């Protein structure tokens, strides 16, 4: 006999009895206490936002600025404060590329894939760094150190190919120099203040 809830007929569905989850809380419902970091942000900043729909984006931005991303608890806290449904918030937040839902790595590496950078070999840069860090673009390394991202253009095409590491713009980057930059960033537990460099120069 198969386990309850197993499915092999396509399109049939009918989930397993979800006793474990149901016991603890109504599925999906927000329940205090929230994650302590979210609580701190909400008490210090979040609670002061006026409870209207126009606060949605400013509040999302505030939470992300403070927490680095938008954890579930933050979304729930915002939804409850603004009296909007979680899905309304999800719809807004997921629309904008600026909002993150996963905890970012301690360091952030952004490879430009704009036309100029592409012509100057940013694809290979990306392939190599992905292989090196063992993470796909958009993801974070398993140790939580580095988040690798791709963007369409930094507007610094004269320096192509461009890679931004922890806010520092690096021009004319090669695979080797990028590895060195990432390794160097890893030496510091926290991102270092940004400075424009020309790594290849």
């Amino acid at each position, binding site marked *: 006999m198969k386990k309850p809830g197993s499915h092999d007929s396509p399109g049939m569905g009918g989930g397993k009895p979800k006793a474990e989850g149901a016991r603890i809380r109504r599925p999906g419902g927000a329940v205090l206490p929230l994650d302590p970091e979210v609580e701190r942000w909400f008490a210090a900043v979040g609670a002061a936002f006026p409870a209207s729909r126009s606060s949605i984006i400013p509040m999302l931005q505030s939470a992300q600025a403070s927490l680095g991303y938008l954890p*579930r608890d933050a979304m729930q806290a915002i939804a409850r404060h603004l009296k909007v449904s979680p899905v309304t918030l*999800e719809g807004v937040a997921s629309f904008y590329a600026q909002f993150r839902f996963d905890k970012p790595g301690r360091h952030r590496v952004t490879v430009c894939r704009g036309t100029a950078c592409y012509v100057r070999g940013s694809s290979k840069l990306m392939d190599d760094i992905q292989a090196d860090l063992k993470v796909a673009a958009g993801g974070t390394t398993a140790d939580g150190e580095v988040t690798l991202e791709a963007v369409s253009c930094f507007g610094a095409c004269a320096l192509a190919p461009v890679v931004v590491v922890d806010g520092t713009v690096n021009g004319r980057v090669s695979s080797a120099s990028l590895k060195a930059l990432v390794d160097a960033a890893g030496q510091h537990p926290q991102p270092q203040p940004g400075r424009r460099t020309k790594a290849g120069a």
Partner: protein
Amino acid sequence: MMNTLQETEAVSFTLNGAAVSASPGETLIQTAKRHGVEIPHLCYKEGMRADGNCRACVVEIKGERVLAPSCCRQPQEGMEVSTNSPRALHSQKMVLELLRSDMPAQSYSPDSELDHWVDELQVIAPRFMPRLSPGPDFSHPAIAVNLDACIQCTRCVRACREEQVNDVIGFAFRGHRSEIVFDLKDPMGASTCVACGECVRACPTGALMPARGVGLVAADRTVESVCPYCGVGCQLTYHVKDNRILRVEGRDGPANESRLCVKGRYGFDYVHHRQRLTKPLIRRADAPKSADFVMDPDDPLSVFREASWEEALALATGGLKAIRESQGPQALCGFGSAKGSNEEAYLFQKLVRTGFRTNNVDHCTRLCHASSVAALLEGIGSGAVSNPVRDVIHSEVVLLIGSNPIVNHPVAATWIKNAVKAGTKLILADPRRSDLARHAAHYLQFKPDTDVALLNAMMHTIVLENLVDQNFIKDRVSGYEELRKNVEGFSPEAMAPLCGIPAETIKEVARLFATSKASMILWGMGISQHVHGTDNARCLIALSLMTGQIGRPGTGLHPLRGQNNVQGASDAGLIPMMYPDYQRVNEPQAQAKFEALWNTRLDAKPGLTVVEIMDAVHEGKIRGMYIMGENPAMSDPDVHHARGALAKLDCLVVQDIFLTETAYLADVVLPASAFPEKTGTFTNTDRLVQLGRKALESPGEARQDLWIIQEMARGLGLVWDYAGPEEVFNEMRRAMPSIAGITWARLEQESGVTYPCEQEGDPGQRVVFTEKFPTESGRARLVPADIIPAAERPDREFPFVLITGRQLEHWHTGSMTRRATVLDAIEPEPVASIHPLDLDAIGAKPGDVISVTSRRGTVSLYARADDGTPRGALFIPFCYYEAAVNLLTNPVLDPFGKIPEFKYCAVKLTKGGVLALRSSYGGGQSMAAVQAEQ
């Protein structure tokens, strides 16, 4: 919700070369349909707001550069529209081909609208690459999600957000990555989805389908009926094949307009449960009765033996007759049920009154709105609602107090949420914060037990600030001076610390309520189930009367009825102090009327109520009982006491569809028919009498309840021969002026008629008390109320307040819903909702087992964190046999309504405890078995 009517005159234009005329406000697609011209459409659905996103319905309008979506375009005078020009057709086909290219090879739905239009327009096989398809989501017990078939028409979003206003389904991400999501992109089964199923009904392609393939089987026939659960009275259609209900769909009834909730849509398969009683049972001589029984409904033969109907009926009637002869009529009593039809209720009370010859007949109304009805009869002369639920759309302000309709009256809650979206201000007052709080303009989380303080403080403000409707008082109300003097002592400042609501807030909502053009009050058990339940209701009535907020659309008083027929059963006289239509048994005129009608002598002494009867059994005064469809062994307060009473009876006859906890203590058990197995009328909370129609044959030797009551009557020496429900209903019309004008033929034709309907042909009055109140003087009476504290306040030993009630998925004592596959799968285990900080204080985590103890008993169950429950209180639903919360409740009664204080008693909490072994009747488990077979 449809396009606003801007034009008032018909518009003439040309459609495919023919001259046509559009009704005012009509869109092109509607006019075309009326003229027999079908235009393909997907995101458009009749009755829903047109969205115009799919572009399958584009038409060509002469002189316009671009094609127009006919679902959101209204015609103009002289316009020349072509629905089938080469350009329009090309575009329509292209849309369909593009959508088809993303679809899975095989459709999930036999009724896919996309497939229909693809066939209709003979669209060629798609030439385009399919998109990357998301995987299926089978996390929900009732709904299968296959977003690979989703065309993003947003019909489900509109159903969830705009109709049911649950706001669970939405549209997330952007551009080609757009997708339908639940909550924070959760699996549907883990989301806050309440499984109303409205999205499934809306979906045109089968991306959302009933789970486990139940939407794929074609029905032999359909039967139009009513929902068997709450008092909202939603009309529905059974889809039946081989004497089994396949599925249920909403029907366009006055109370629901095709909407349903999870119970109505998915809670029907209890009728096919293996534990249905199919043979009469007689208690074995070697099976003693005890209040401490442990029952196993899978093994009835350990306590009973099977018997023939002749033997069982002879034993049942013989036993009762012997008691009547030896102890007198007052030693007998009967409990009917608000789940039965009007005809069953009427015959049952007639049997007790004329066959038992006592007025000891009652039913569960005693446990729900008895106090509301007492206050309403005293104040305005009628126990029924003044305005239907759907009148909230005409209200400027709605005061909802002591009620959680999202859980208990889900479809009524949708009308309230719709009204809020349309601008009605909701004042929600409830010690437990429900999901409706999000929609409220003011949410008052007042302390449990302080209703009178809060409401009197509101009235104090209304008097002080001259917001009283003096004309209304002068013309239609008496007793104002006394009320005014009484509320003088209840200033908001003095009451604020008592009820926990700031004085300013109390004043603000009082002003809002008093000064609005139309304010309506709806309430539930939070008001009625207190020792001061009648006082609570008196305050609400006074609030409504003193502000003149009654007698017009969008105003009035609406106690939301719990059971599907609690209104009707009460109307039919299933109460100890009244004959049908609330004619008092101790009024000689009424007595004479019914003696003539029933051709018998009647007892003038009002009978005992539900809880009083249990006490009388313990005192040895009552020896025999006939129970039809009630389960007092679960639903009475201090249920160990009630079970003791049932066990003590010399003769207990129980008529039910399952071996309930009550039936377990019976001498004779008579197998009855389930709701879909019989025809009868049911009266909803709006006073709407509706016809429930037979869809199935009963299993085994289970019989129609009307037949059983008649056989019992014959055994007791009565000569009854009703051919069926119609004949009973016609006798009721003679006994009850309020429904005298309702004919059976009209019920069959219209499915529902609102009473009062005194003459044949009366349309029925949806709003009553427009001119006068049905009292002797025609005036309503204000009755002041003082603060009476709950009978058992928390103390050091028992520091928590216990609140009981219901869950969305489970009906009352759970005998039906815990045997319904989907419902049991969603809520399989007993849980107590507690504030997380209180849980923390006893050292427990969510999901831990806790024990709850009162002066009367202990239950152990799982703890669920719920910060909507106030600190210092906890909530437990009363449907769980293995953690029967009524073992704890306090049987103290409101002096007027005789309703027990289910909403307040003192308990203590401890971490740990021993859970009862069996934790289900097997509804959800039977689903697991079905899956295993697949």
